[in-house]
């Protein structure tokens, strides 16, 4: 809704905005945030937070880059990236749950630091390593019918996770754990494993994000994904999920990610000065969320008034 308003407003302000190539750019630019936000969304559904996603993504690209140097094989490199991402996620989940930590903030902050350190340590020359198998370049940088391939990746990941969250027992458990953890224990749900699983999936999403970003840049870098944790959490929250858990829809997280992408793109197109961009991004995000709040509020009002007249 708000996204549509935003898009209309921007297209009036800058004619370049609606050019197909620019729309493709936006999708490609938002793809990484969107993919990682899907995992973050699951974590937030269970009242958690995953601060390590950005560093995890960087580490995954570096591991992928190292594997590429051993074997120029797209599938192998992808598996390496996914494994790296999933492993970091597993560490998050296992330490949090079985270490009985009071909140995942600490462990994911720690893996943020550790994964970033490992990425720098492992990267050849401690810096960007150029080169990626052609399959990965195709996925991250290529386009089909003018639509960036990364869009299809976002779509695929979203569909898969949506299917798992909506159609599978596991998805129901996630909502239950987020809704009332003590009750979930009482009902015999394997709460610990559900929690571990969402961190693993968040890590895997970071791995997928690594594939897309590495493909787009045809490189691996220990510096990738800086502040990605804030972007993805913002996307999820803009999309309407609650830190109190158990509420929210993956589609909304995607909308949030695209919204962030659209705002950044528009500010670039409008040639807004850097400092002012920072100010504008902050203001627009708040306004967008605020508009949504007001809209819900008004809708509820109108509904009460209408049903009042009807009865």
């Amino acid at each position, binding site marked *: 809704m708000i996204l549509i308003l935003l898009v209309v407003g921007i297209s009036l302000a800058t004619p370049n905005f609606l050019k197909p190539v620019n729309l493709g750019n936006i999708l490609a630019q938002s793809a990484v945030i969107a993919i990682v936000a899907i995992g973050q969304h699951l974590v937030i559904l269970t009242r958690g937070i995953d601060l390590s996603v950005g560093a995890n993504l960087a580490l995954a690209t570096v591991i992928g880059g190292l594997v590429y140097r051993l074997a120029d094989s797209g599938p192998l490199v992808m598996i390496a990236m996914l494994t790296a991402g999933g492993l970091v996620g597993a560490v998050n989940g296992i330490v949090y749950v079985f270490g009985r930590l009071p909140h995942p903030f600490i462990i994911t902050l720690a893996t943020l630091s550790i994964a970033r350190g490992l990425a720098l340590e492992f990267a050849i020359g401690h810096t960007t390593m150029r080169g990626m198998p052609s399959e990965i370049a195709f996925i991250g940088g290529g386009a089909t019918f003018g639509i960036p391939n990364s869009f299809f990746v976002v779509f695929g990941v979203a569909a898969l996770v949506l299917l798992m969250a909506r159609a599978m*027992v596991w998805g129901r458990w996630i909502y239950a754990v987020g809704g009332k953890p003590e009750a979930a224990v*009482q009902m015999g749900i*394997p709460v610990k494993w559900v929690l571990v699983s969402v961190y693993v999936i968040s890590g895997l999403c970071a791995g997928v994000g690594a594939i897309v970003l590495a493909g787009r840049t045809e490189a691996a870098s220990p510096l990738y994904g800086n502040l990605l944790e804030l972007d993805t959490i913002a996307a999820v929250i803009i999309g309407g999920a609650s830190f109190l858990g158990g509420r929210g829809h993956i589609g909304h997280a995607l909308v949030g990610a695209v919204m962030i992408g659209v705002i950044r793109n528009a500010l670039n197109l409008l040639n807004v000065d850097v400092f002012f961009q920072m100010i504008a991004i902050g203001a627009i995000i708040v306004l967008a969320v605020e508009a949504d709040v007001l809209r819900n509020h008004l809708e509820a009002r109108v509904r009460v008034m209408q049903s009042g007249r009807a009865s």
Partner: protein
Amino acid sequence: MTAAASASPVLAVRNAEKRFGAVHALKGVSLEAYRGEVLALLGDNGAGKSTLVKCISGVHGLDGGEIELDGQRTAIHNPAAARSAGIETVYQDLALFDNLTPAQNFYCGRELSFPSWLPRGMRLLRRRAMDQEAAAVIERLKVRLPRFDAPVALMSGGQRQAIAVARATVFARKVVMLDEPTAALGLREARKVLDLIAQLRDEGNAVILITHNMEHVVELADRAVVLRQGRKVGELKPSKANQHELVSLIVGAEA
């Protein structure tokens, strides 16, 4: 009524001990429950009734004593173990998920799903079947819900309690424990729940009922166990006649 005291107990608790830091909540409590019998668990506030229930249902671990199911000493490590051993519980705090609908609450942790060769978490939900069956149970209990597809967050206290009780009835197989199931219920709903308890008993379950309502005890219970400050202070067969004796057991000598 139909209980055969001679039959072996389906559930037996022996010398249960439980401490919370400095609080000694259960001091060597023993009890036995038989199939086809309603056992009332009585006691004043803080007597340890809920604690005992939670120890049996696997929420708390016992600090001492043991639990036998069908004569077999059984360690109940967690609620999942209790549920799969056939013990269903209606908790005093209801254990409802505010963000889920009544049907989703019903089957939470016990979802109908397929295919069965997959690990449980990865199976696909049979939503339709769950919705229908949950609706049927709710219907049977004559609970009026404003909407069946809305989260339970905004339902009234009684509606919530009715949902929690209904949930336990769906899965009851051996032992059903109800911790003050009628506390928030209106007259009609309370009656339905009592009928349901009778039905659970007639289906051969051992029912453990915690309540402060003496009328309900006299009406339904085959036996009553009374706790006071974590200790078992008596066990008798409740009737209109000995209701006063029961009350003085509960509140202690001074009353």
